[in-house]
């Protein structure tokens, strides 16, 4: 199917199913139950899941395949966002030209930074990309304020020209981002008994683009180009002496991942037309590194999982306050309730960073392959369990099969 072998087609189908059914999957709890706190199926967060998923998928093409660790990819995301918002300000509120421009501009930017940074490798490459990104961030926050609107972030105003659109709506508001009239913020809410699910136009646009981006990365992984990238990571010397020039391969990977980042930035701005400079900061670049490694670098689906994991923490855990904790444990005797709240207090709400840090350490220490490895171990465990229960011994000797590309 679609030029994929059976295994890859299955992976793709799983991703499509996850993306399209996300409104159901992410809202498993009735909306007025205490656990509704853990529901993540509201438009903004769902959009963030897939957008950062795209970002991480792109980053994985560079880092996962070639092993070049860029600490500056947030700059491309930021540049993409700025381009998109400028498109909204100057041209029209249709998101498609904005997204196209953000990909192009981010691509150009990555040609420039990639060309220079790729003259070095290893940590020297990382520091070069970091330096470029930090320069972009610092300038965007201060000197470049006329272009970036600095601290506040670039936003739409009621006197933007918008050549191909309206400057303001009839009711005197800034028009909403749309695809040929379908507003990105329009949401259909479905109530099923105590549950309720949101179907948001913007989310589905992002989800479709994410599926396309995932499909493209799947093809890249399986292509000769992807193989060359893995060869770059494995042994550049051999590659050189096999008559292949690693430079254009790595540069192409860098540009592709930069364009993915630009796409993510453009989508972010399309869902919420404000581009803050912070999204270019080194911590933001670090975040995508964390997402990729946490999920499983070099695996196909890992980066998406990692992105979801971190965004979930940032948005859900940070909102659990003492008040919520007290509500949860109100069924317990007072003393126990207070003790539990006291014990949990440092880890939720304003302590979400602490929990995240501890989880990083645990995952990296015990699951070097990231969440994907965790999943594999779990499934192996279950398989072994089921094998243990049926008494026929497994006569077949399974030689350690090398992963083609781990999924």
């Amino acid at each position: 199917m679609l030029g994929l072998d059976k295994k890859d087609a299955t992976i793709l189908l799983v991703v499509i199913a996850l993306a399209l059914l996300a409104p159901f999957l992410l809202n498993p709890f009735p909306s007025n139950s205490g656990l509704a706190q853990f529901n993540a199926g509201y438009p903004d967060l769902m959009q963030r899941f897939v957008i950062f998923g795209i970002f991480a998928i792109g980053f994985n093409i560079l880092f996962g395949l070639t092993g070049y660790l860029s600490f500056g990819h947030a700059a491309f995301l930021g540049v993409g966002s700025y381009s998109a918002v400028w498109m909204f300000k100057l041209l029209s509120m249709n998101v498609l030209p904005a997204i196209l421009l953000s990909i192009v501009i981010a691509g150009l930017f990555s040609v420039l930074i990639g060309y220079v940074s790729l003259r070095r490798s290893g940590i020297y490459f990382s520091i070069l990309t970091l330096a470029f990104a930090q320069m972009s961030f610092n300038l965007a926050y201060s000197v470049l304020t006329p272009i970036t609107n600095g601290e506040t972030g670039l936003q739409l105003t009621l006197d933007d020209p918008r050549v191909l659109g309206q400057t303001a709506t009839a009711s005197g508001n800034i028009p909403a981002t749309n695809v040929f009239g379908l507003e990105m913020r329009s949401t259909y809410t479905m109530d099923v008994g105590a549950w309720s699910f949101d179907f948001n136009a913007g989310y589905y646009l992002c989800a479709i683009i994410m599926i396309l981006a995932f499909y493209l990365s799947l093809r890249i992984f399986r292509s000769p180009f992807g193989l060359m990238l893995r060869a770059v990571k494995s042994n550049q010397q051999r590659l050189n002496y096999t008559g292949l020039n690693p430079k254009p391969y790595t540069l192409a990977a860098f540009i592709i991942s930069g364009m993915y980042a630009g796409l993510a930035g453009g989508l972010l701005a399309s869902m919420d037309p404000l581009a803050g400079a912070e999204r270019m900061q080194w911590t933001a670049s670090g975040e995508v590194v964390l997402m990729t490694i946490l999920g499983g670098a070099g695996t196909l689906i890992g980066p998406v999982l990692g992105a979801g994991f971190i965004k979930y923490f940032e948005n859900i855990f940070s909102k659990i306050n003492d008040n919520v904790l007290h509500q949860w444990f109100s069924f317990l005797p007072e003393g126990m309730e207070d003790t539990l709240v006291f014990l949990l207090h440092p880890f939720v709400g304003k302590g979400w960073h602490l929990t995240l840090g501890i989880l990083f350490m645990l995952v990296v220490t015990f699951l070097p392959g990231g969440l994907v490895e965790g999943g594999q171990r779990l499934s192996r465990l279950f398989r072994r369990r089921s094998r243990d229960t049926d008494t026929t011994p497994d006569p077949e000797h399974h030689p350690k099969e090398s992963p083609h590309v781990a999924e």
Partner: protein
Amino acid sequence: MSKFTVTRRGALKTGAAAGAGLALPTIFTAGAARAFTNEPGASSVTLGFNVPQTGPYADEGADELRAYQLAVEHLNGEGDGGMLQTFSSKVLDGTGILGRKVEYVTGDTQTKSDAARASAKSMIEKDGAIMITGGSSSGVAVAVQGLCQEAGVIFMAGLTHSNDTTGKDKKANGFRHFFDAYMSGAALAPVLAKMYGNDRKAYHLTADYTWGWTQQESIQAATEALGWETVNNVLTPLAATDFSSYIAPVLNSGADVLILNHYGGNMVNSLTNAVQFGLRDKQVNGKNFEIVVPLYSRLMAKGAGENVKGIFGSTNWHWSLQDEGSQAFVKSFGTKYGFPPSQAAHTCYVQTLLYADAVTRANSFEPCAVVEALEGGDSSLPGIDSPSNKGYLFDGLGNGPTLYRAADHQCFKDVLVVKGKDNPTSEFDLLEVVEVTPVDQVWYEPDHPMFAGGDLGQCNNGA
């Protein structure tokens, strides 16, 4: 497709959901069309408190959150009622807002525009918050204000001091109780002239981002109007932690006053560095060298420690104020938490009360009705002759008579000039109020050049 029906949770808590469950033929029902975003149900209303919980302003955010919790208690009739008793408007009776119990959700702005918007969106989309309030920096306030305008909910700004919040970035759905950079300059300059004379040369260090620039512009204009000369204005990177290389050349520049247009960590460090360099022990042009910090907060003063002693600045409110409202607030806050509230806490508490009051007076949660109530009728501040002196006038929330001006949704009230206390009696007693600058001295017209260029636009009900 229904348009931006981000709401439902509120309605679900009422009978709507039960009805949907009973109507057998249509198990799936779309969220009922509502008059405005997140229209609350009959029993409760949800407010969104969006404050920095991580990052350098986390302590300020924590104090804001304390104030919000206190305000919710008071609105729901718990505790001692705080400023409800002293508030000039008497419509709030401790039964929640319009008979609905006040509930709240919290979020983390991380003091980043992006994160703040994400967290505000989640409160609007997921938790059905009808009003968003909080924040501890202007970038965040402007960003979230824009979001609330688009989403059709009310934004009651927390601590934001930039002129832009109610200047070029003002929005119909957004309101600011806190004072601004212009007012700081206008209040501070006369006191500085009185203390240090009219013949002074000032050297500015300015944080290189929007707030820093408006602050610098304001204080420069105000001091120059009184005869001061501006020797230099040096922009410093936000990320700077060590300001020595900016401070070292100051003494040799001919300036005899250093003005630090910094906030938060920047201010703590630049002031600490300046005092380290012994600037305040020096004599230049035959005068004592002085340092001024236009915007003060107690948390910053605490961070800078001994270095604040004798240094002038301005502040929105201080717990040592003796008016009835401030006393009542300090009493209930202090009794509950064991220490006096900060100015950020005060402004957040007041904003919550003002919102509740406006809803009650409008007898509706509809944002446009609330906006109308907050814009008041024709009441005006006494003693100021200006066509723009119109809005909602209230008293009893500290700061004396206060006008929520209809033209730009900015509060006008007395501004405090404070000084780092020489002999603090406790760890909270760091600042002393030197002068309460009356409101007419800090008054400006909505079309003042520092505020021009923006447009409130139309109020937005969302849905």
